[in-house]
């Protein structure tokens, strides 16, 4: 037992161990994004055949009708995953910054812009998440979800904030997806270009889906 604890401690304090934790929590968050997007897409479903409410209202009420222990278990689980991801990433970044001596003239060969701005886009996403939770979870009403969303996005400032944040998410996910594969040891020169394509496509689909909602409201498709 002692060996297991000692090794586990060494693992979570080592460079590779922490990177693997960031990658695994990142992968969980990517799956969460897929689920979130699938739920959001019900906003295009229009009105349900009975009751006169929108599909997304039923979806929101369905989520809230879960047993409260399950709802809170999911929420706390997500919070834990998110906290590990953010804290470890910031600690790693701090170490990386301190490991460097800066060049007078910087040169870059192939590091992508998204890979070099992971912390900036990550912090932007964190700030957005707080806004998002405040607006739609804390001040939200599951029974009037559709109306709440449409009213919110009819404010161009609100829509613009969401669109900028989702663009940050695009950049974060675009590097994140292929980085997860490499950190988990699944990268080889044969599949790495494929991971890059998958990363861009994944980011396009997910972020395109999210952005489509404020755009649809602004252009009057959803009203």
């Amino acid at each position, binding site marked *: 037992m002692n060996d297991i604890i000692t*090794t586990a401690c060494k693992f979570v304090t080592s*460079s590779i161990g922490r990177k693997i934790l960031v990658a695994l929590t990142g992968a969980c968050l990517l799956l969460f994004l897929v689920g979130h997007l699938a739920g959001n897409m019900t906003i295009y479903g229009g009105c349900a055949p009975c009751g006169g409410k929108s599909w997304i209202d039923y979806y929101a009420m369905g989520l809230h009708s879960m047993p409260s222990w399950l709802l809170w278990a999911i929420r706390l689980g997500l919070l834990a995953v998110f906290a590990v991801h953010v804290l470890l990433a910031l600690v*790693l970044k701090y170490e*990386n910054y301190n*490991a*460097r001596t800066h060049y007078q003239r910087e040169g870059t060969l192939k590091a992508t812009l998204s890979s*070099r701005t992971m912390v900036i886009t990550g912090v932007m996403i964190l700030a957005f998440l707080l806004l998002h939770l405040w607006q739609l979870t804390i001040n939200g009403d599951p029974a009037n979800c559709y109306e709440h969303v449409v009213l919110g996005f009819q404010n161009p400032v609100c829509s613009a904030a969401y669109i900028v944040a989702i663009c940050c998410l695009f950049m974060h996910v675009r590097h994140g997806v292929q980085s997860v594969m*490499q*950190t*988990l040891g699944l990268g080889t020169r044969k599949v790495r270009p494929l991971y890059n394509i998958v990363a861009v496509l994944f980011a396009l689909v997910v972020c395109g889906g999210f952005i489509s909602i404020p755009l649809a409201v602004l252009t009057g498709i959803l009203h």
Partner: protein
Amino acid sequence: MATLNLTLKVWRQENAQAQGRIETYQAKNIPDEASFLEMLDIVNEELVHEGKEPIHFDHDCREGICGMCSLTINGVPHGGKKVTTCQLHMRQFKDGDTIWIEPFRAKAFPLLRDLIVDRSALDKIIAAGGFVDIRTGSAPNANNMPVRKKTADAAFDAAACIGCGACVASCKNSSAMLFTSAKAAHLNLLPQGYPEKNKRVLAMVRQMDALGFGNCTNQYECEAACPKGVSVDNIAKLNRDYMIACASEAVGVFS
């Protein structure tokens, strides 16, 4: 023979404690077949004639195999042409160019003087586990020891690392993952090194962490800057091997 007139922006620093600065030099009538180091030799000869301190830089074999030469040229270690600085020729530059020359920068590579840094941190990673504990004898006869062709190729490609440190210097995080992973993979893949794989991986990674290198963020600058084309596949392999080694250590598969 074409000649070049260049402006050099060179990092000068008397010793580790001194405040460093960029100084400007004119390199006149540089033959385009000169190597980058020969160009610096020509500049240094002039400096010596003028009674000034020549520019200090590391070099040894000058044929691209020893890993001693360094120099970050225009922000890229070895100039980014997939060769070492000694094999970089002045025909890669144009007349009138301004060239920035800085040392290989990383906290783990303390600067000694001008363009010379102490890269012995890499030796410490090797000393932690980059070897085989027993005598393996001289090179075995071909096919005496069965090794898959693909495995042999991968080990050979990893073994091409000359330990110059360009991976660390090019990394936005000053991570030594490409070096460590190449040295570990080279031995882990072959029958002589395989029995000590877990022990080696743990020792080398822990030493790498202890020396103050940064953490890899999968930007692959190292691979692009490597004069020997060492692949980041080795980094993925090290991540894999590290997980296996930790699991083995935790459950006591080896002690």
